[in-house]
């Protein structure tokens, strides 16, 4: 009866209200057999970290289209680490300028996905990430 599932939060931090991409990803992860906690729009980094703790997730997926990623991402990483969840993978999607990607990866982001990314790649990356951790 031992059945481990990959648990992922999909959240939209900040103020932009376009959640279609986040919903597409949530659905794709569900269809890949993961348990997706969908928190909805306008989440603060504090709300996301709190949900990550209470839900004991393996990964956090953020969708940011507002351009605020360089402020939001470090804050989420910091709060995850402060809660003892530094091992949780942070995956980022949305409109992220190319020059920011290396900086984000250096901060500890596990993957960055722009428009046109195949959801199959995202699923595979999360599986690999969680597989290496366990």
């Amino acid at each position, binding site marked *: 009866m031992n059945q481990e*599932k990959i648990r992922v939060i999909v959240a939209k931090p900040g103020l932009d209200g376009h959640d279609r991409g986040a919903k597409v990803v949530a659905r794709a992860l569900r269809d890949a057999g993961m348990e997706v906690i969908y928190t909805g729009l306008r989440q603060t980094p504090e709300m996301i970290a709190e*949900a990550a703790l209470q839900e004991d997730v393996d990964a956090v997926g953020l969708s940011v289209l507002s351009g605020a990623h360089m402020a939001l991402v470090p804050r989420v990483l910091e709060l995850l680490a402060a809660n003892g969840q530094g091992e949780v993978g942070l995956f980022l999607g949305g409109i992220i300028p190319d020059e920011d990607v290396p900086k984000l990866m250096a901060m500890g982001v596990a993957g960055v996905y722009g428009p046109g990314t195949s959801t199959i790649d995202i699923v595979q990356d999360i599986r690999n990430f969680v597989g290496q951790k366990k």
Partner: protein
Amino acid sequence: MSEIVQKVLAGDRLSLTRLLSKIEDGAPEGQQALAELFPHGGRAFLIGVTGAPGTGKSSLVNQIAYHYRHPADGGELKRVAIVAVDPSSPFSGGAVLGDRIRMNALTGDAGVFIRSMASRGSLGGLASTTAGIVQAFDAAGFEIILIETVGAGQAEVDIARLAHTTVVVEAPGLGDDVQAIKAGILEIADILVVNKADRPGIEQTERALKNMLQLAHPVRRDFTSPYLPASGEALNEALWMTPIQRTVATEGSGVLELVGLIAKHREHLSSTGDLARRERARLAAELDMLIQLGLVENWQKRLGNGQYEETLVEVVSRRISPGEAARKLIGMESK
């Protein structure tokens, strides 16, 4: 006592959340921890919230929890845990758990812990490990535990065995008065809520529910266990009359009254023998379920390689019936 249990009892949230996963996954450490935690439990009051999809269960749970954290009636401040169950996909086994969306008002409060669960194949409206999760919260010192079922239709009645008080949420425009006299979900309500009371059709829905309650001769809701003899004792205690409460969960209207009714039901349970009887029925139900799961697990372990598939082929080709096949497969364990 194991380290994780000590930490959970000391209020460490990281240990608690990890333990909840171990319980949910059916891991041996989780089962061991539950055994150690069990003597520490039994103090929490368990409130079940159930009803059809889209009736506003999550919003209502949010409001009830908010009330216990900010008591407007001068009541006691209580620590609240929420267990919110959503369905797993029967195909992929995955799930989208979206109940937190309605619970933003509770974030940033260290006295609240919200945990989403996927049903993982269970059909009664809860997951098979929900009772274990509730026991862990209970032992960890949460005084109120709100359990939200999957969007339930007619038969998802497991919640009534688990919770002390079961709140069934209806909304205007769902079904006619024949729906209201069928057995099942309406029957398990200790409190009936008509949510979205600002919508048209509220009068009609409320009338149908009232008629349903009046048609019925009030009965004591004793659960039966297949392994226990029926008590048959005639009790001379007051019966609980299910009240109907209107709410608008998005605004919070009617919530104070609803919480008042929950408190009244709690008093009723403790002033009669109902609390003890429900406690017994709840633990009996959990015991029954665990026995069944354990038996199946044992049987699977002893099942030879390919035996199941071979027998299934015989059934599919109609050489033997499903009943014969089951007897054959179960009989194999003694070989």
